[in-house]
């Protein structure tokens, strides 16, 4: 207390102090999420190319970037690929993840250890997983084809990475492998939250495993199911690493998604305006799918 002005100053400090805890993080989020979203929206209406970095000129072109990317035949193909990749990945991850979660729910020796080791594929850098799979799926020398040939299942091997229809299946399989542990972990903790007495009561009433799954497990697991499905869709739409490493978007654009197209437009053709437009289409798609899904889920929960 140094003088008469100390009291109001302390009060001011007392008023501001709590905000000082939040402001740095809030400013960071605004700069690194808010600014990019706004900037990207602006860029999508500009002719923003390499020249812009030298001249500083990015003329306003209205909707031309959108018109060009949407009218290109590549767009509808990339959209279809994105939908197939996302639907296939999320469905595969979910079904296999749920099966593993149900398996690990029972307690048995080493169960906890095995369950935690299962997390490894999810923790590995995607580039590492993708590199390993690229080598495993090599048509001539990859272990997958070697094994198939040794078992006489296929005579000459499957062109996992070089066939236009096989390549999409391959990147989807790799992405399923990456996503299984996450689905298992969330669904497992959802299963653990279901009270054991419910199953005991159902057993006393003569319900078999199928009936108790349908009437107890599934309805009570719904919240965890919604979480993994919504996050699965939102995360899979953004996937870039796996596709770039495993197939590079090829062969003949067969594995180009909206995310890889956006990368290609911006960072390989230096058409930043069009890359931004493609990125915005991706955001809209992601928002729409999440909203549709959440609404369907709410309706199902009330039904």
């Amino acid at each position: 207390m140094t003088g008469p002005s100390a009291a109001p100053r302390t009060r001011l400090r007392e008023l501001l102090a709590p905000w000082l805890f939040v402001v740095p993080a809030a400013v960071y989020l605004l700069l690194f999420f808010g600014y990019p979203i706004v900037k990207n929206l602006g860029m999508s209406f500009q002719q923003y190319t390499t020249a812009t970095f030298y001249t500083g000129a990015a003329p306003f072109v209205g909707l031309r970037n959108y018109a060009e990317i949407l009218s290109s035949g590549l767009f509808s193909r990339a959209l279809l690929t994105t939908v197939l990749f996302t639907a296939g990945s999320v469905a595969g991850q979910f079904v296999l993840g749920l099966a593993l979660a149900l398996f690990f729910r029972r307690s048995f020796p080493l169960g906890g250890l095995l369950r935690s080791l299962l997390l490894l594929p999810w923790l590995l850098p995607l580039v590492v997983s993708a590199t390993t799979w690229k080598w495993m799926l090599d048509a001539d020398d990859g272990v997958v084809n070697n094994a198939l040939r040794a078992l006489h299942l296929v005579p000459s091997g499957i062109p996992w990475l070089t066939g236009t229809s096989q390549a999409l299946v391959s990147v989807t399989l790799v992405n399923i492998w990456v996503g299984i542990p996450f689905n298992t972990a969330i669904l497992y903790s959802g299963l653990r939250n279901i009270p054991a007495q419910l199953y005991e009561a159902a057993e006393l009433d003569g319900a078999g495993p199928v009936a108790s799954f349908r009437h107890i497990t599934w309805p009570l697991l719904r919240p965890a199911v919604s979480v993994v499905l919504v996050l699965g869709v939102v995360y899979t739409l953004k996937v870039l690493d796996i596709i770039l490493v495993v197939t590079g978007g090829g062969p003949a654009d067969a594995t180009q998604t909206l995310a890889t197209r956006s990368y290609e437009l911006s960072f390989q053709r230096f058409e930043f305006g069009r890359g931004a437009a493609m990125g915005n289409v991706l955001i809209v798609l992601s928002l729409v799918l999440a909203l549709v899904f959440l609404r369907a889920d709410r309706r199902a929960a009330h039904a």
Partner: protein
Amino acid sequence: MRGGPVRRGRRRGLLATVVGTVLLAVMLFPVYWMVNASLQPTGTTLRAGWFPSHPDFSGYATALRDQGPNLVTSLVVALGSVAFSLGLAAPASYALARFSLRGTSLVLFGVLITQMVPGIVVANALYSAYNDLGLLNSRLGLVLADSTAGVPFAVIILHSFMRGIPREIIEAARMDGAGRLRTFRAVVLPLSRNALITAALFTFLFTWSDFLFGLTLTTTEAVRPLTLGLYEYLGAHTTQWNAVMATAVLAAVPAAVLLVVAQRFLTADATSGALR
């Protein structure tokens, strides 16, 4: 009949262990295959045997020679991102959990929304901003961009943990005359140790695993994370699979370490939860 059901239960438990081990072996086969490949001798073909019967470490020697600087870059950027993310997230999470400020739910909603923003959108806008600010090809630039994964994640983890700290403990410290900052430093942070470690480990792993920002926000070899080094290696050296896979193994080490370390803290969390 004494012990019959028990013995049957035990046998069924062992059967589950066997099945579980087989399932895990199938799931982790690619990881085994990566290690196996990294121990093969140098050669142009990639016909690896099923076991590295004569482990050859020349792949690792080549990888360390070529990727050494990238390894250091990844380590520095990841540690920087941990410090930056926790430095921002820890005080913010505490304030959001305990100060009942206006706009708290707005900030938390914003944090959740960030999960929907594709990295490519952020990279697209940051590239031009970084170009103007001279942040391209810099470790600081990568730390800031990579923390887009760490900051929201750390806020989510720390916020939910700090909400569980009993109010009485914080009020007692305040009654003893400790200011907000002192209460935070001397009471809240030590209590949140396990949550902080969890957030730090995952932030480290997110940044260590980053590929997109390394790919888009660096244009030279001066600052290059290991993941990008692996990607470029793959393009240039498909003749040296042992070195490529050795690089992959080196890049996978933090994930394996996290699995072991996090295990300890996750169990510790569960126990302290049970005690409370």
